[in-house]
């Protein structure tokens, strides 16, 4: 891949913008607004795969548990704004219920993922939503994503019944819960790409405008004329980010 993959970034204008996939960011006169987005959900529901699909448009079969990605970035272009998602992966810290509160500090968006073939993963997703509503930024935009719908879609003639029977979370049930809890709702397949872009585009649309107007505190470290020099927030230069790419 090109050198931008080193940063784990890739241009991906969202559909809503109606632009082609190849518009380089330089041509854009809207300044991208940075939005921290955190992924949550039980281990092995496909959190990292969703992001890899969104950021690099790829899927790795039998992906190992997450290693090496501090966060990935991806731009999402709407008609009136460009959002640069800074996507934080759990780095496996959710496996033994050891996710640090730092993880969702200042997060403006969260994608809570469950596996449509495992009903227990929806219960876990619900507890993450509760945790976010208790601990995170009160204006956080939360999307619930039921992943792995490729496993319950008919792939060939005659497989329909057996495939649908693998589903443990009916769409209506999850959707009703999402409505009630005030979440965006999607069903996705990181493997095939279905619905993945929509998750991020709809979140981008829903991020409150006032949040975008006022920069986050880290960007205006007050108490001095300039942001703390020497403590820069590096722009994605983390060796660990490489592993997010296939190159």
């Amino acid at each position, binding site marked *: 891949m090109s050198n931008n993959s080193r940063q784990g970034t890739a241009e991906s204008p969202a559909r809503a913008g109606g632009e082609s996939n190849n518009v380089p960011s330089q041509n854009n006169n809207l300044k991208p607004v940075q939005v921290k987005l955190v992924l949550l959900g039980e281990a092995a529901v496909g959190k990292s795969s969703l992001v890899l699909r969104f950021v690099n448009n790829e899927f790795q079969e039998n992906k190992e548990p997450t290693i090496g990605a501090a966060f990935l970035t991806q731009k999402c272009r709407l008609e009136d704004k460009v959002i640069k998602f800074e996507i934080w992966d759990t780095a496996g810290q959710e496996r033994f219920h050891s996710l640090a509160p730092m*993880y969702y500090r200042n997060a403006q968006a969260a994608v809570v993922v469950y596996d449509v073939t495992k009903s227990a993963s929806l219960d876990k997703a619900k507890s993450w939503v509760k945790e976010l509503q208790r601990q995170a930024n009160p204006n956080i935009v939360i999307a619930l994503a039921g992943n792995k719908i490729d496993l319950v879609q008919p792939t060939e003639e005659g497989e329909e019944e057996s495939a649908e029977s693998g589903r443990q979370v009916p769409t209506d049930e999850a959707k009703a819960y999402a409505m009630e809890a005030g979440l965006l709702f999607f069903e996705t397949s990181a493997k095939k790409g279905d619905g993945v872009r929509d998750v991020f585009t709809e979140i981008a649309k829903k991020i409150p405008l006032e949040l975008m107007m006022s920069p986050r505190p880290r960007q205006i470290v007050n108490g001095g004329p300039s942001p703390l020099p020497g403590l820069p927030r590096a722009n994605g230069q983390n060796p660990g980010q490489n592993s997010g790419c296939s190159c």
Partner: protein
Amino acid sequence: MDEQYDIIVLGTGLTECVLSGLLSVEGKKVLHMDRNDYYGGESASLNLTQLYRKFRSGATASSELGKDRDYNIDLIPKFMMANGELVRILTHTDVTRYLEFKQISGSFVYREGKISKVPASEMEAVRSPLMGLFEKRRAKKFFEYMQNWVADDPSTHQGLDLEKIPMSAVYEKFGLEPGTQDFIGHAMALYLDDSYERIILYITSVARYGKSPYIYPLYGLGELPQGFARLSAIYGGTYMLDKPVDEIVYDADGKVCGVRSGDEVAKTKQVIGDPSYFSSKIRKVGKVVRAICILKHPIPNTDDVDSIQLVIPQNQVNRKHDIYIASVSSSHNVCAKDYFLAIVSTIVETDNPEAEIKPGLDLLGPCVEKFISVTDLEEPIEDGSKDQVFISRSYDATSHFGTVCEDVKSIYRRVTGQELTLKQRTRQDEEQKEMAE
């Protein structure tokens, strides 16, 4: 957890988390456990519920204090020197990207019954009420000298070899009065042996951002261990909070080979941990008394700023050790709006530790809440070479992270057999890198 690891780390205090992160980055397979259900151990920042659980056996906080989630109260008061070693470790590991920092607004010293700002540049020395007119001129010369001193450049040394001569000889050369030597030693060197390196660290840290030499992470010091824990996890470290540690298992030769929790035993070649996991392998070397205070006002006579360090030098209150006061506020996202936190601390010298910090508490004005604790300072009896168990030291009463970083480096050296080398990334490097992309 029944697997083979290279290193098992016990406790998620800052020392342990930095080591866990550094070792994971180097490719070691790390299991990191903590008996608590929160990160940070002794260096955690707690919310009100956790704080009251710890100090008030679970009593509930007054609703007047505001929301639980607004509070991140440090258990150990320390600030980061802007030019210090911890900042170098943070930039070396890129953990800075998880954190946001703010400057501490002022550094003060208590002298002859008054609180004064510590002058840290030749400009401030000229304005300082701590010195008379002629002394100011001498101090100005001294600050200029220290600020411009470069180890490799003898032309900046003015014939003084700071490596060899004591600071007293330097003070003498500049003709500084004992009172001036006193605040330089206690409020700037922040150490009993006021070595020139510490004074230069202080002065260059101030030069970095002005106002004070200190910076502080938003949401409290507890963010530091969490940041390094995330680094460790990103590089494959496994995290288990709320996990009891029931036994350290040794082989026939007395070398560590595992850690047992309940019925599970994780195998390992080395163990790193804080003293609380190794009661039979540590000794007590002293005690620290700390008072965590919640205030509704800034500390009086400190220009109403949002954060300060205030040092009461030992000789001002007839003690052997200095008393430190560290104060932060809602502008650091550590307490509800309009509240301030202050921690008064010192090394215990008598049987009545609470009385020892009274001179500090008296400077705070009325406290809404006050939590006093006396903690043992502990250190390992052995260096770990025999049993491959490497134990960190307790967080001491010093006001910044210098000694913590020394401990990190020392354990790193003993665990890996190599020195920790940090890449000092400069602004220019960063910019060039960005340009190249």
